[in-house]
């Protein structure tokens, strides 16, 4: 059994190519953060992805061992695909929550614009319960934020 695993270990070339590609990812993400085109809060998952892939690509023994644990006998680099795919799914899910939050905030902004525009146009005095309103309105948004803090 051990022999089979060793015989079908990660080829050196594959390891080198994968390491190079993952390193490139880390460098690109780093550069995007450095040049302020990517905020840290959205980059953490990418950096984690890159780092994990670099480690698994460069450390052939580790990849082979993990592949053996997972029962991947034929071709250990397949684990790289699986790990990569997992992270891509995580990143996409994270983006879905980000988009949801943004569209929620966008909607609230549109409503505020309409309300304020009307108040200006009608030159209304300060609304009777603006205080109560503005104090408590963030409540639902906070709930949304509590729902998915882990990915932020």
């Amino acid at each position, binding site marked *: 059994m051990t022999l089979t695993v060793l015989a079908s270990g990660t080829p050196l070339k594959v390891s080198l190519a994968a390491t190079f590609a993952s390193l490139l990812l880390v460098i690109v993400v780093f550069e995007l953060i450095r040049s302020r085109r990517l905020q840290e809060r959205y980059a953490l998952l990418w950096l984690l992805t890159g780092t994990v892939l670099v480690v698994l690509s460069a450390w052939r023994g580790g990849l082979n061992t993990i592949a053996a644990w997972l029962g991947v006998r034929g071709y250990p680099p397949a684990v790289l695909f699986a790990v990569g795919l997992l992270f891509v799914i995580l990143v996409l899910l994270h983006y879905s929550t980000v988009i949801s939050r943004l569209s929620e905030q966008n909607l609230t902004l549109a*409503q505020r614009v*309409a*309300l304020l525009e*009307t108040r200006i146009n009608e030159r209304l005095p300060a*609304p009777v*319960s603006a205080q109560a309103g503005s104090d*408590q*309105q963030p*409540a639902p948004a906070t709930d949304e934020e509590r729902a998915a803090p882990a990915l932020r």
Partner: protein
Amino acid sequence: MRTLAIVPAYNEALNIGRVIDELRAFDPSLEIVVISDGSSDRTAEVAAELGTHVLKLPFNIGIGGAVQTGFRYAWENGYELAVRCDGDGQHDPAELGKVLAPVLAGDVDICVGSRFAGGDGYRSSATRRVGIRLLAAVVSVISRQRVTDTTSGFQALNRRAIGLFAADYPHDYPEVEGMVMTMRHGLRLSEVPVAMREREFGSSSITALRSIYYMVKVLTALFVGLFRRPVGPLEDA
């Protein structure tokens, strides 16, 4: 009682004038706010010319968001009562007295005008009737109270209910979820039978093809909603 009529409208320049006239015919002291949901026609202008309050959303945000803008307006400007009446003319303002009565009497926080509660012959396609029945059954089970028309936007609300919907209101097709929300927050809701009309101009936003998508989405939202913590309604300071 300061009462506000909340009239959401998306490209209803042809219908909105009549709706406003009829609202005033029902009660001249009624204040009206028309929410133009990113309309590209003269909806907002027509309403403004007729002297109503107008909330002009900078782009289309959908019926739920539009109606909620109206609730926020009602809340911030201290209205004690609100009625909702769609800008497409399908709701007959002459029927407003029926939905207002139970709220005015203090029996309920929200009263919904139902097309089906009275067995009045409202016509719609067979598939749509099945969908409406199914939704009514689901909502009835969840809320342990029999409802017949979960998609009616013809409603009267007191300040407590206005506060709830100003704080949190579902987005896309809000009436179904809104009904469940109402009852989960301990607000009292009832239905009264009303007659509704076919639209005069234009077409409804729910086409036959979208119905299935609509059902799936609403049922999912209802299911997930069961696991959501209630948010308190806004309270007056």
